[in-house]
């Protein structure tokens, strides 16, 4: 290789390297996720949604287990803390609500951001909504028919304003839930 060719080759390599090493902050599209903020009671805005998902989707034989891509943690399924067990503690913990939040917004971040930016407009573009409504192949079938309390709960989240009453209505009420047979393990979540 002559000196001139060697210089040209080096310049080409450097040019390619420079093209691939841009500042990710400048080139990546900013993602606007639905709000995940602390609200009264020390929980999160997602907690009512997490409770609904826990009961309807997050059982151990569905999304509350390691085999599912849409991983949900909660009382009805897999726990986030190693010291906790299904059913004990009896509620979704704050940490689990946060983990579930990231599961849901991380499924389709771009589309989630788009729907959120449009204040929840056309949420049926989201796979999680399609699956829940039974509009897309789903082993669990139709979990939240369009317009149901569960559907309103889930869809409201993507608008940025969780419809807590619908979330609560979609959950089994205290009287319907048997007293859990659980003895908390030492160090388990309160």
């Amino acid at each position, binding site marked *: 290789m002559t000196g001139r060719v060697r210089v040209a080759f080096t310049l080409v390599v450097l040019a390619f390297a420079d093209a691939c090493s841009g500042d990710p902050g400048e080139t990546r599209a900013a993602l606007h996720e639905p709000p995940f903020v602390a609200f009264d009671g020390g929980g999160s805005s997602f907690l009512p949604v997490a409770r609904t998902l826990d009961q309807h989707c997050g*059982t151990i034989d*569905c999304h509350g287990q390691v085999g599912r891509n849409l991983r949900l943690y909660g009382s009805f399924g897999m726990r986030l803390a190693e010291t906790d067990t299904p*059913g004990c503690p009896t509620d979704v913990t704050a940490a689990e609500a946060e983990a579930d939040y990231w599961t849901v917004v991380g499924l389709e971040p771009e589309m989630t951001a788009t729907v959120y930016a449009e204040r929840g407009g056309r949420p049926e573009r989201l796979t999680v909504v399609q699956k829940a409504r039974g509009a897309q192949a789903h082993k*669990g079938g139709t979990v939240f028919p369009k317009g149901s309390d569960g559907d309103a709960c889930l869809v409201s989240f993507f608008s940025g304003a969780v419809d807590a009453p619908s979330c609560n209505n979609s959950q089994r009420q205290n009287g319907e839930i*048997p007293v859990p047979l659980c003895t908390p393990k030492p160090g388990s979540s309160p």
Partner: protein
Amino acid sequence: MTSRPLLVVLCLPSLIAIACADPVHDAAVEALGGEQPGVRKGPDHRPGQPCLTCHGGEGPASFQMAFGGTVYAHASGDAPVQDATVIVADAKGRTFQTTTNCAGNFWVPAKAFEPVFPATAAVMASGFSAAMTSIINRDGSCSSCHTAEQTQSSPGRVWIYPAGKDATPAHCVQMGDE
């Protein structure tokens, strides 16, 4: 018939068999291991194992179950509870009741009960009762979730007695007992 068409005819069934095989299911069946020594295939076998792996319609067992499991005295230990009443209820409010045998095993025949999920279940024995706090969304094998140890992913066995209450010893007739 020349040798090439003959070869195709001979290979075709094998290719179809390979195409139809489900390696995930096959692995799940294999993971169950062999029968316990002295226990013949039948109602008393494989307590604590996920029944529908074999009895769920994909084989190898021909008898199909909608639900199947084992009731134990306590969360840990292997003492089964015989004659426990098991009730399963589906989303339409229909129920099916059955009783555990000497191994603690119970099952709901698929022909007798076709549940609409979600379903739930309760167990009763000797004046004690336990109801599921969760719901069953699709898996009729109790032991898929109710494993021998309480973990992040399992509430432990299906168990019913409080500490201090022991199960009445049950004895299944085994090979060689007759």
